[in-house]
């Protein structure tokens, strides 16, 4: 019976362009868009221009990520920054401090690193070189694995969108229950010589299969088309993804139990899923969120999934055991969603 249900639901999915779009193609578009927006690590894109004018014979080495753009005057530097032609500018007067021209209204997340890097470059250029032993060594704390040396933006945007759209499976599951109730196919199922638990499982299992196919497709595409790497255990990635799918399907059961008709589910579930994705860091990295929002993220499974994906994709040597907190949390969420869903589920 379960085999027939899987075949039937896969056939239905393949003929439903809307669902195919939302489960498989929309996340790819989001990955590409977000992957192009967030640049960090060695994958920084083209160096950013910094307008420069100097009244002194002083060379300021800007370092990686910046390129000097000489200007004819101090005012030209200021105008270039004001017009947005360059990200920042340096004006070196004949005497006195160097002027760092930058839009102070810019977000601190963007302005801070630029301001810091240029300040360091100026200080390095102006201070006399003094040979001294290394004073600072940057290291991860014990027990925290080193990240990959070449982290691309897709290491973050692929799992972010895979989790966001992976959880949209919950809406599909809920819609299936509502549709089967409306059309009467659920009634046929109950009239058949099939135990009720099997009727329920038979409706859910196809979506576990579809969810696994979806995440395999998205991570596969991320790896082969966008250069996403897996720094840790591949088995860990697989088990973590399976936990995400179980959690999404269990959430679908909960939606089906409390969601009502297809129309009601269609209007409420996307909002709930988007808010969960937003709070969980699928659209905006939680590391950049305020402390309160970072903590709040843990009330949704998305954040646990993303923490696990970040570890296994970015931190070298991450094992299946290292992912236990994320996998455990996802399974706990799945259990809670399933328990609540079963409690509220009406077979008749």
């Amino acid at each position, binding site marked *: 019976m379960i085999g*027939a249900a899987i075949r039937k639901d896969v056939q*239905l999915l393949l*003929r*439903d362009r809307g669902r195919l779009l939302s489960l498989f193609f929309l996340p790819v578009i989001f990955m590409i868009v977000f992957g192009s927006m967030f640049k960090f690590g060695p994958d920084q894109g083209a160096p950013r221009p910094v307008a420069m004018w100097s009244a002194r014979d002083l060379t300021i080495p800007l370092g990686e990520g910046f390129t000097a753009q000489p200007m004819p005057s101090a005012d030209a530097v200021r105008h270039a920054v004001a017009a947005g032609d360059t990200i920042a500018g340096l004006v070196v007067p004949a005497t006195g401090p160097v002027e760092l021209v930058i839009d102070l209204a810019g977000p601190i997340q963007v302005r801070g690193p630029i301001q810091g890097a240029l300040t360091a470059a100026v200080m390095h250029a102006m201070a006399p070189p003094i040979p001294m032993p290394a004073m600072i060594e940057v290291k991860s704390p014990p027990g925290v694995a080193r990240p990959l040396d070449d982290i691309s933006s897709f290491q973050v945007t692929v799992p972010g969108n895979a989790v966001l759209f992976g959880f949209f499976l919950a809406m599909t599951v809920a819609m299936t229950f509502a549709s089967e109730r409306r059309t*009467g*196919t659920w*009634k*046929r199922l109950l*009239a058949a010589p099939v*135990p009720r638990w099997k009727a329920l499982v038979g409706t859910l299992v196809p979506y576990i299969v579809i969810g696994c196919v979806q995440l395999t497709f998205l991570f596969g595409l991320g790896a082969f088309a966008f250069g996403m790497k897996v720094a840790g255990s591949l088995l860990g990635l697989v088990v973590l993804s399976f936990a995400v799918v179980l959690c999404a399907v269990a959430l679908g059961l909960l939606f089906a139990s409390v969601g009502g008709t297809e129309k009601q589910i269609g209007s409420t579930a996307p909002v709930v899923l988007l808010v969960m994705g937003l709070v969980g860091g699928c659209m905006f990295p939680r590391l950049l969120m305020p402390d309160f929002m970072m903590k709040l993220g843990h009330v949704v499974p998305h954040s646990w999934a993303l923490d696990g994906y970040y570890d296994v994709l970015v931190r070298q040597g991450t094992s299946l055991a290292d992912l236990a907190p994320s996998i455990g949390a996802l399974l706990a969420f799945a259990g809670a969603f399933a328990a609540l869903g079963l409690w509220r589920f009406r077979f008749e």
Partner: protein
Amino acid sequence: MLALRGLGKDYGDRTAVQALDLDVVRGEILGLLGPNGAGKTTTISMACGVVTPTRGTVAIGGVDLAKDPFTAKARLGLVPQDLAIFEDLSATENLNYFGALYGTRDVDWALDVVGLRDRAKEPVKRFSGGMKRRLNIACGLVHKPDLLVLDEPTVGVDPQSRNHIFETVKALHARGMTVIYTSHYMEEAEALCDRVAIIDHGAIVALGTVGELVARHAGKGIELELAGDLDAAVRAAEAHATVTRDGAVVRVEPKGHLAPVLAAIEATGATIARIESREATLETAFLALTGRTLRDA
């Protein structure tokens, strides 16, 4: 083939079906008629194991549905009132899926029975309403059940498809299949059913062949369409006749002559807009038993 004993269902304080006893004999077509909300669908749903009864038992082919649901359900095919099919799948794919629920299926036979063999591979969404209805029946048949339960199988179909469905049920009956058939079309019940059970307020109020029900409950009468104070007119008529009322239409069976009935009505100030002699039919029996016509009900 089907035995219902003291079968009842409560939803909170409301009783949908009281304590219903019914035997469906192997090989017969039993019509189940009743106004909306009478308890037909709840009764059928309990008989098929879709709804759990509050009280009573169901036995299908001698097998207790509660004790051995899988054996009992395997003998039964349900055709719900709604189009319980997947419109994005083909007829064959639908039949394969629903047949798989029973572990056995004869897809070609089911397609032949409903005359859809030549459209078997097309997506159902391209079918006409009548063809979808026929496929709906085929999905209940695909495992060749001993007992087929059809809940309003001809609702919203064109006359040609209705005739096809009608002939299909007759053919299945001729092969020895037991059928329970609910319908809003009295002529279907009259023409198809060996026996008819009329349900009202969650109880069977009459059971028998069409002839028996008509003879017992549908005495010939006069149908009057009245205007004015209808309540007063009905009260006045009741002194001289058995009266049933459906809106402005009143059916009277005079205890003696008709003249005193008409005089009593006119004495109340009511006017008689139409007067018509009616033959005794299943429709009039239904009206007499439930106080409502089936289509209005």
